[in-house]
């Protein structure tokens, strides 16, 4: 039990909680143990710890096993101790018909994948190991669905859903649709988002210094572990609820650091409904699923609980192994964008979104591991429909992945001589000093620019992807003003920490660029923050940087020099010899061969059937058919006809075809004269043409 010793709670905290749970006063305990109330107070505040024999007595007084006192871990709760707790309506009568933050995002699976995975990356626990994220789609129906709903105490929340399902507002309509579909199809779609090697939801149930509270209690709170974090838990997390038609998300977290003496199976459920009225009582809409809180001032709210394996499994929240991280279960998941309807489409959309947004984090050099590993699995009632698919960035983003791994392997070149190569250049960013900082000179950071040939079927070539931090994409810029005929390419700019450098300049650049990002973190521009934090001229530095990176791309992809295209443009345009490529094709004004079929017969003669297209005219046509053997160069040897047989709309007279006036098509057959073949018939291709009749 070494581990338990490391994770155990302060004795004082533990004792206070046990007393509160039992609604037992300190003096009552003092009496039972025959000690002074002051001694009990000293234990609960942590000023003193009782001797071992005293602890056994305490266990007896509380009615718990001695072992529980020694381990002092919070108790695992049985499902019967769990309840839904609905927040009463605001006293001022204010009614909320949806979460404001939810409207800031499209409830799109691609957006969910982006935001949720970015949050996981920001919470990486062991920097030497990749963060693993796993998306699991599962459709439940029949018995499986009922067992899940029972575990969720569905009957308790169902009246609240029904009260909220109204067509009076957007959120109500979405809930109504979710309920209707669930009833009609007797099925429910769950989307589970797991991360491993992440911090997990650590910290107490309430308060400032808690990731748990930041994710599950607060709104618009960005409580992130590292300064390089982009996005924000506050805004991004809401996509989890927005993806649920029912506004319902369950959580299971394995913590990286113990809370209440435990790390595994910290569970909680959060339901976001709009304001509604049920049984004459008004509710704000928010509800929590968990243990009833007994802490003074918190009565009537739900707090997270430590669950047993059976409960966790029945809520479909069981995690793999002991690696810390969090599992979010989105109940009633859907793709509000509407382009993914079936399980298969949703599966593919998730894979695509993960690849498009995190190809860089999933790319590594030969001797290193990537920051992120991602996979998507699809199940139906626990059975595999689409087996776990590891997202491979090289499949979805071949060019960009190639560029980054060449850089990580030190294989990028100054000038490309092969289409598979990656060119590298450096774009200077002069980071101005911060206002009032000891550093008075600009720091010079070299951002890394990589360029490589685009994939053949790349539908969006000539783009520059700008990244910083843990290689998150800040923006994708289209590179314009390229010389005509520049081959399609993809470019990647790594700035700040994304370069892999740990130099002070890289950190300064990281900080500077972060300051220049608007709240959406999708641009480097002049922000108010930038003006207030940095000395004059900071705006110009950002603009220069934006300009310089495009110039650098043009240098890397462009021809080395532009030769002066001779002569006045007005004249050049009239002297183009491009008859084969441009100009509208006029209809032919003479008969042409439309199609030839044929084979070599037993005697070695070519038998051909020819279809002819005729332009409409009132006079008949007379044409001579010719057959020639195709050759590689030089003139084609002509072959004589042994026999010409008229087909549709024509007659043959002395080797000349007479096509009927007014006809638009004709046909004939021909047999070649074997003696006129310069080589054996079956060794040559035959070309059939029509010449002006002579």
């Amino acid at each position: 039990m070494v581990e338990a010793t490391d994770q155990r709670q302060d004795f004082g905290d533990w004792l206070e909680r046990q007393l509160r749970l039992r609604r037992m006063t300190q003096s009552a305990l003092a009496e039972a143990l025959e000690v002074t109330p002051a001694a009990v107070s000293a234990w609960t505040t942590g000023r003193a710890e009782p001797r071992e024999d005293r602890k056994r007595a305490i266990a007896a007084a509380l009615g718990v096993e001695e072992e529980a006192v020694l381990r002092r871990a919070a108790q695992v709760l049985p499902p019967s101790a769990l309840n839904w707790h609905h927040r009463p309506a605001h006293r001022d009568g204010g009614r909320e018909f949806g979460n404001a933050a939810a409207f800031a995002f499209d409830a799109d699976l691609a957006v969910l994948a982006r935001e949720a995975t970015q949050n996981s990356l920001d919470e990486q626990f062991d920097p030497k190991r990749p963060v693993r994220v796993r998306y699991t789609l599962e459709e439940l129906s029949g018995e499986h669905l009922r067992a899940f709903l029972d575990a969720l105490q569905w009957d308790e929340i169902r009246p609240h859903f029904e009260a909220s399902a109204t067509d009076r507002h957007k959120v109500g309509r979405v809930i109504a649709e979710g309920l209707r579909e669930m009833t009609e199809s007797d099925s429910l779609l769950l989307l589970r988002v797991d991360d491993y090697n992440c911090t997990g939801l650590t910290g107490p149930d309430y308060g400032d210094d808690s990731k748990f509270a930041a994710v599950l209690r607060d709104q618009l709170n960005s409580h992130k572990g590292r300064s390089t974090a982009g996005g924000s838990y506050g805004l991004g997390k809401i996509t989890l609820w927005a993806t649920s038609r029912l506004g319902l998300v369950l959580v299971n977290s394995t913590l990286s650091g113990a809370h209440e003496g435990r790390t595994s199976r910290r569970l909680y459920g959060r339901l976001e409904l709009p304001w509604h009225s049920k049984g004459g009582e008004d509710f704000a809409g928010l509800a929590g699923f968990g243990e009833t809180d007994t802490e003074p001032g918190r009565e009537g709210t739900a707090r997270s609980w430590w669950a047993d394996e059976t409960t966790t499994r029945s809520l479909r929240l069981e995690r793999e192994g002991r690696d810390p991280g969090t599992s979010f279960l989105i109940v009633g998941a859907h793709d509000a964008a509407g382009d993914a309807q079936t399980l298969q489409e949703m599966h593919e959309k998730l894979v695509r979104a993960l690849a498009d947004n995190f190809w860089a984090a999933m790319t590594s050099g030969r001797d290193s591991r990537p920051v992120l590993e991602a996979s998507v699995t699809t199940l139906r009632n626990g059975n595999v429909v689409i087996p776990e698919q590891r997202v491979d960035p090289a499949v979805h983003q071949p060019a960009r992945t190639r560029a980054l791994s060449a850089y990580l392997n030190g294989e990028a070149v100054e000038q490309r001589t092969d289409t598979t190569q990656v060119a590298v250049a450096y774009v200077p960013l002069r980071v101005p000093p911060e206002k009032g900082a000891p550093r008075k000179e600009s720091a010079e950071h070299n951002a890394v620019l990589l360029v490589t040939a685009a994939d053949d079927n790349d539908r969006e070539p000539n783009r520059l992807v700008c990244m910083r931090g843990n290689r998150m994409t800040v923006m994708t810029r289209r590179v314009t003003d390229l010389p005509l005929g520049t081959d399609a390419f993809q470019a990647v700019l790594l700035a700040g920490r994304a370069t892999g450098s740990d130099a002070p300049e890289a950190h300064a650049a990281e900080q500077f660029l972060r300051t220049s990002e608007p709240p959406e973190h999708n641009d480097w521009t002049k922000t108010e923050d930038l003006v207030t934090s940095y000395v004059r001229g900071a705006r110009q530095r950002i603009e220069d940087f934006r300009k310089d990176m495009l110039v650098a791309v043009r240098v890397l992809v462009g021809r080395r020099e532009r030769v002066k295209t001779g002569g006045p443009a007005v004249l050049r345009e009239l002297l183009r010899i491009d008859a084969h490529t441009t100009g509208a094709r006029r209809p032919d004004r003479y008969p042409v061969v439309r199609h030839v079929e044929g084979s070599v017969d037993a005697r070695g003669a070519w038998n051909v059937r020819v279809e002819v297209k005729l332009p409409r005219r009132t006079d008949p046509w007379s044409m001579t058919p010719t057959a020639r053997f195709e050759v590689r160069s030089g003139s084609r040897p002509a072959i004589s006809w042994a026999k010409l047989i008229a087909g549709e709309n024509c007659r043959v007279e002395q080797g000349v075809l007479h096509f009927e006036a007014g006809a638009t098509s004709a046909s004939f057959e021909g047999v070649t004269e074997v003696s006129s073949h310069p080589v054996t018939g079956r060794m040559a291709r035959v070309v059939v043409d029509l010449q002006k009749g002579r």
Partner: protein
Amino acid sequence: MNTVFPYPVLTGDITLEVTAVKLDGRPLPLSMISRDHKVVALHEVERSRWDEARLDLRVVLPEKELADGPWDDVACLAALTEASTNARATARLRRSDAGWWSGSLVFHRDAHLTRASLTVAVAATVDGESGRLVGMAEESWIVELDERIPARKQELNIHETDFRNGSETWLQTFQDAPWVVETTGDMPTVHLNTGFEGLVDFLNGGGAPVERAVRGMLAAQIAAEAWTAMFNAAVGDLECDDEGRPQWPTGWRDGVLRSMLPDVLPDLSISDALMEVHLRLTEGGWQELQPRIQYAAARRAKTPKNIANGLRAMSRDVETER
């Protein structure tokens, strides 16, 4: 299609790509290869003299069709040819595990003049006959030996020079001419006389609508002359085979004839038209063809549109002055 094979051939796409080029073992910058235009430019200022070039190639064949079809012993061959020297270099490509065929084609500078064409042929054993051609690349690549920019050449040379004291002394005879069209050589050239006061500046300038309209008329006149000269030169240079039939020329002459013949003899197929102009030139009737040639040249030079624009602009100008 008017060609028939006596055995089954491939219908799927065959694509060819030049992935890298080395001149005497030294890699060429990728900017001298255009995948877009399918052109390689080999002329480097820093290395104008080289002996051997090596092109690294990658070819994608319709593998599934090949595997399912009646073809055995499939071979993929690259061939570089230049019509004017009749040079031919070939290389056999090897199939990689990744599903494409790759290899290097080596050729020598002295075997070539200016522009070679690179294509890929697929050969296989069909019906017990080995080495039969079963497919060719959709589009061939062009290897430019004298160019520094990998682009398909579509324009004539326009050469601005002072006829009185330029490097081409033969132009001195034309020193009072505003321009001269030269049709000898690899590409026709329009020499513009910078010694002709104001001409080149006017052609290169901007200015008012009237000025632009007049510039259009002038450009159309120069262009019409150039097209007429090119057509005459192309017809005059035709070579005939043993049976006296004219052969299609190569290079710009091919482009000029294919572009203009449908306007010169609209009722004849293009090969009949070639025969016809050749007969007119050698056996009489050439004079009667002149209006047709002028008409075809004027169409290329957009003379009708430019004249109409010029007249309209001038009449408007006159009206506003009143």
